[in-house]
């Protein structure tokens, strides 16, 4: 019963927090351009409005198009359940590890890409093909980064990884974790379709990746598709902050008070990383599409060097 309550809290925190991050990033971008920008909570209003609107569905589309949003949404949420957010949820609610996490996100991506092809639109195929390329290039980094933290804590299960990281103290003072941190930032940027890999605010066919796949969606389908993407981004950020910047309350929650503190610390950490991502977005331009391999290589090289330093040269430095 207690665990059920924790799961519920975790779900609420994730769903409520995810759109806020988009709001923050948009606000920072607006500030950097000397604009006031839309209100911080506009993303929520948009989503609510979209939910109530009529869906315009393509005549060519089939059931794949209609079930895809629900699958994408539920995979994002399931991924969120695998990652301890505010407290170390014991295995038993959703036993899973990093490999299952990657696979679940893969299920979501599979259906996003299929749904884009379903409407016979030229943009859909374009977005789907580009998404395929970006994901292919970034996937080795995703697995290796999670594998490395797993290896250091001798387990692939996320609660145990977080416990081991807390045992280390402040992971970010060690070179290997700094490299994982930087590589994971690149992963977050690539996986959640941000500048410099993809521009979330564009509708120009030359530059769209994720937006091109969403182009045919409208109404409630679009709303949950977007919310799913935001939650996926939050899950990735959560992975980063809760593994590499662990806090005490995360590991062992004993009561309501600690839980509230934990939620506050967690939200603060997530917002900090979001601001870093926003600043990165403000400072860089979108990469040429065929320069993305260089960025992906960079993240992989960071991890590879980290691996060399830690597992081959360093012995047991940590």
């Amino acid at each position, binding site marked *: 019963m207690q665990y059920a309550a924790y799961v519920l809290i975790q779900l609420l925190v994730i769903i409520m927090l995810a759109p806020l991050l988009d709001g923050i990033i948009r606000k920072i971008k607006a500030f950097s351009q000397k604009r006031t920008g839309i209100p911080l909570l506009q993303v929520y209003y948009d989503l609510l409005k979209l939910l109530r609107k009529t869906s315009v569905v393509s005549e060519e589309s089939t059931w794949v198009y209609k079930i895809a949003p629900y699958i994408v949404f539920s995979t994002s949420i399931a991924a969120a359940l695998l990652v301890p957010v505010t407290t170390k949820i014991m295995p038993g609610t959703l036993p899973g590890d990093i490999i299952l996490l990657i696979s679940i996100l893969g299920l979501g991506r599979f259906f996003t890409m299929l749904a884009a092809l379903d409407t016979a639109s030229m943009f859909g195929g374009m977005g789907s093909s580009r998404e395929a390329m970006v994901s292919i290039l970034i996937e080795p980094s995703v697995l290796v980064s999670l594998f490395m933290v797993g290896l250091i804590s001798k387990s692939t299960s996320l609660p145990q990884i977080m416990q081991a990281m807390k045992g280390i103290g402040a992971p970010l003072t*060690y070179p290997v974790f*700094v490299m994982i941190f930087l590589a994971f930032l690149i992963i977050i940027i690539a996986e959640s379709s941000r500048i410099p890999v993809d521009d979330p605010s564009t509708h120009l066919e030359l530059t769209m990746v994720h937006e091109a796949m969403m182009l045919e969606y409208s109404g409630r389908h679009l709303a949950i598709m977007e919310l799913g993407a935001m939650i996926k981004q939050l899950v990735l950020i959560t992975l980063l902050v809760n593994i590499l910047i662990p806090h005490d309350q995360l590991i062992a929650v004993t009561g309501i008070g600690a839980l509230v503190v934990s939620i506050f610390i967690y939200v603060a950490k997530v917002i900090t990383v979001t601001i870093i991502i926003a600043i990165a977005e403000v400072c860089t331009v979108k990469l040429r599409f065929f320069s993305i391999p*260089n960025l992906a290589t*960079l993240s992989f*090289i960071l991890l590879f*060097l980290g691996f*060399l330093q830690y597992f*081959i040269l360093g*012995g047991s430095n940590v």
Partner: protein
Amino acid sequence: MFSYFDVLSVQILFSSFILMANKRIKSYIKTFRIQSLLIALTAGAMGFSLEKGRIDLLVVCLLIIVLKVILIPNMLEKTYASVEYIVEKDFILNIPILVILSCALVVFSYFSVSTIEGINSGIINAQIVNSMSVILIGLFFMISRKKAIGQIVGFLVVENGLYVTALFSTHGLPFIVDLGVFIDVLTAVVIMGFMVFNISEKFDSIDIEKLNKLRG
């Protein structure tokens, strides 16, 4: 067992990876500046942290900042500005492959260094492997670039690597040797800069492949 020398040596190694991934000649010079700054930091940190208090290392640190962070890069920039403005594709293979090959170089230097007796007891000294890799990557950088300035930067990186290796293995060479090496490097850069001028005047390009014409 946490050591900021580890962090520094990894960063020096990483900066040479960034150098390898750079596309433009201006960014070579910028990266070289950063790398030299990191080396100066390392020398300075070592000067402070060693028990006996090595004043000479602090002097070397200052020297590196003056020479390699300010003077030589500025000279290179001037040279570059006077010979060519056109940005061309300067590398022989595409960048991800160059970078992956550099990774292989790191692994290779690990295998080579791990057999040396006496440097390490049990675990291999990561810093020495990293600095050896910097030397190799510097050489590989010289091979991979076509323009003469690339060669100069590569040469300087090799020198950086040698210096860092000495720093990490024996906590710096005798001061007089360091001084000699720095003056050597400075002269070398001056001469090479002069040569680049000459090459560019003779061949209308600083592409070293054109030097093939020089054979008899």
